[in-house]
């Protein structure tokens, strides 16, 4: 047994083995991720500067791939992708915010149930759900029927293979991911703060605008991050719901690898997507300035 006089010593004595385990906890995942995540990304960056031969790349330093990727069809695809991601992410946020607000403030003892309900569809096959949207949005389908029933639309509706269908699909797919961080931040907000605002004479709207919304900024930033970033690379939804006209970056990159076998151009396009992601992250970091412990 250890006596009380030794009390201060054991920690310093045991410091070396503690450090070994701490280093291992950090080192093992880092090593794994260095091989299967960082190294592949580094390959992509290096190859984006190489000369393309069919199905192979001659390493070197040329900006030719970036020139191609930033001109004509490829440039318009890139710009369209950025525009889609920003718009769809904003739509997603607009739909998600009232839902998160309801769960955090109004659902009472049903809040856990409400959160579970939001997350359940997430555990079914993503692809099959998108395929089901094809059925829902088809001409003469359920969506058209509902709109007709509500007198919001009259007659047949061709939504499939349009931009609108892609937006519906994107908002649908990323809604749960947007709701969760918004819920977390609204849930943590002290009710006393809102009561204080009301007591000081602010209207409900003013309280929402001047207290709730600014306080929710970290949650909003996380929600935008978690939706806009994957949307920049989304390749399934545009293909299934948008048809052949509205090709986005994800499909364009994929076809450079799988069909055209132009790895160098594909790599340059992938790097462009990464740059767009970095811009989004930087913008969000500015939005949440002043908040400690924020994602990203």
């Amino acid at each position: 047994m250890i006596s009380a006089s030794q009390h201060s010593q054991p920690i310093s004595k045991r410091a070396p083995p503690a450090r070994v385990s701490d280093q291992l906890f950090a080192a093992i995942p880092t090593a794994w991720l260095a091989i299967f995540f960082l190294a592949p990304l580094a390959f992509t960056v290096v190859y984006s500067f190489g000369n393309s031969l069919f199905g192979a790349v001659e390493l070197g330093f040329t900006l030719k791939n970036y020139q191609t990727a930033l001109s004509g069809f490829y440039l318009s695809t890139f710009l369209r992708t950025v525009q889609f991601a920003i718009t769809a992410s904003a739509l997603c946020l607009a739909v998600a915010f009232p839902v998160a607000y309801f769960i955090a403030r109004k659902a009472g003892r049903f809040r856990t149930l409400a959160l579970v309900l939001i997350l359940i569809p997430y555990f079914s096959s993503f692809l099959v759900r998108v395929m089901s949207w094809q059925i829902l949005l088809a001409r003469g389908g359920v969506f058209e029927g509902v709109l007709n029933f509500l007198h919001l639309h009259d007659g047949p509706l061709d939504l499939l293979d349009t931009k609108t269908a892609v937006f519906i699909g994107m908002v649908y797919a990323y809604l749960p991911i947007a709701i969760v961080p918004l819920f977390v931040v609204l849930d943590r907000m002290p009710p006393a703060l809102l009561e204080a605002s009301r007591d000081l004479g602010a209207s409900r709207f003013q309280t929402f605008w001047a207290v709730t919304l600014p306080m929710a900024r970290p949650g909003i930033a996380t929600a935008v991050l978690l939706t806009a970033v994957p949307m920049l690379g989304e390749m399934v939804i545009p293909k299934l719901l948008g048809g052949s006209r509205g090709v986005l970056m994800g499909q364009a990159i994929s076809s450079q690898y799988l069909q055209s076998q132009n790895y160098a151009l594909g790599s340059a396009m992938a790097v462009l997507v990464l740059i767009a992601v970095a811009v989004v992250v930087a913008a969000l970091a500015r939005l949440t300035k002043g908040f400690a412990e924020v994602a990203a």
Partner: protein
Amino acid sequence: MSVRMDGRQKRITDAGLTLWFGLAILFLFAPLAISMIYSFNLGVVGKQTSNFTGWTLEWYPAAWNDLALRRSVQTSLYVAFWAALIALGMGASLGYALVRHPSPSVRKWLSGLTYILLIVPEVVIGVSLLLFYAVTGIPLGAATLIAGITPAAIAVTALIVRARALTLDPKLEEAAADLGSTRLKTLWFIVLPQLLPAILAGGLMSYAFCFDNLVVAAFLTTPTVNTLPVYLYGSLQYGPAPSVYAAATVVFLFTVTLLGLAALCFQLSRRSGRAGVGGG
């Protein structure tokens, strides 16, 4: 309560929010419901149609007897199991290091790495891995696919474990050390039991996540390693059979049952844990 509370305005806002929530739930569940209903659709010449042509039960046995479909489910189960196990171990280790590594700069680097894992779009990871394996000459197979889908799952697990590790009381570990426990013993008997629910939750999330992975898997697939989502994606070209919907329905019910059981275990373990703490 505020005196100025305008009752009528509040009621209207509340009703609006409730309605909005209801519509959101409807929106989220409509495709799920459709995919289940259409697994009973007769279809036309063995293909799924957007018009419901009549009820049938034939697609469930058809899915079971479809060898390629069944093999893809097996591959998915196998791949998701091993990927989740790796993500569980690596994620737990990373999540704990995120909180407890003695060096702040290492912690900062680790958290930067964790977030980067989540923000690189899947298509970029997919093509990068394809390139990486091609250049290094590693032949594609189940192992390369398993390794390739782990990074995002590791990040998710690490963040869940980190949230739990932040609430751990360091004094407990110090007390164990003071009483003569080695670091390894402290980790095993003090830290691990407290982190276990979070680690298991992370593992389950990873499992569901990896099972459903389509984009990365689409780039790393081979004729022998074909997961369910990749198989479905391929079948889209010819028009999918309703048996695909039947398989998806069965897999979904299986996953939800698994998660329900896990939630139940989690609840029970937490209750018994609390009782233990209260008793001791």
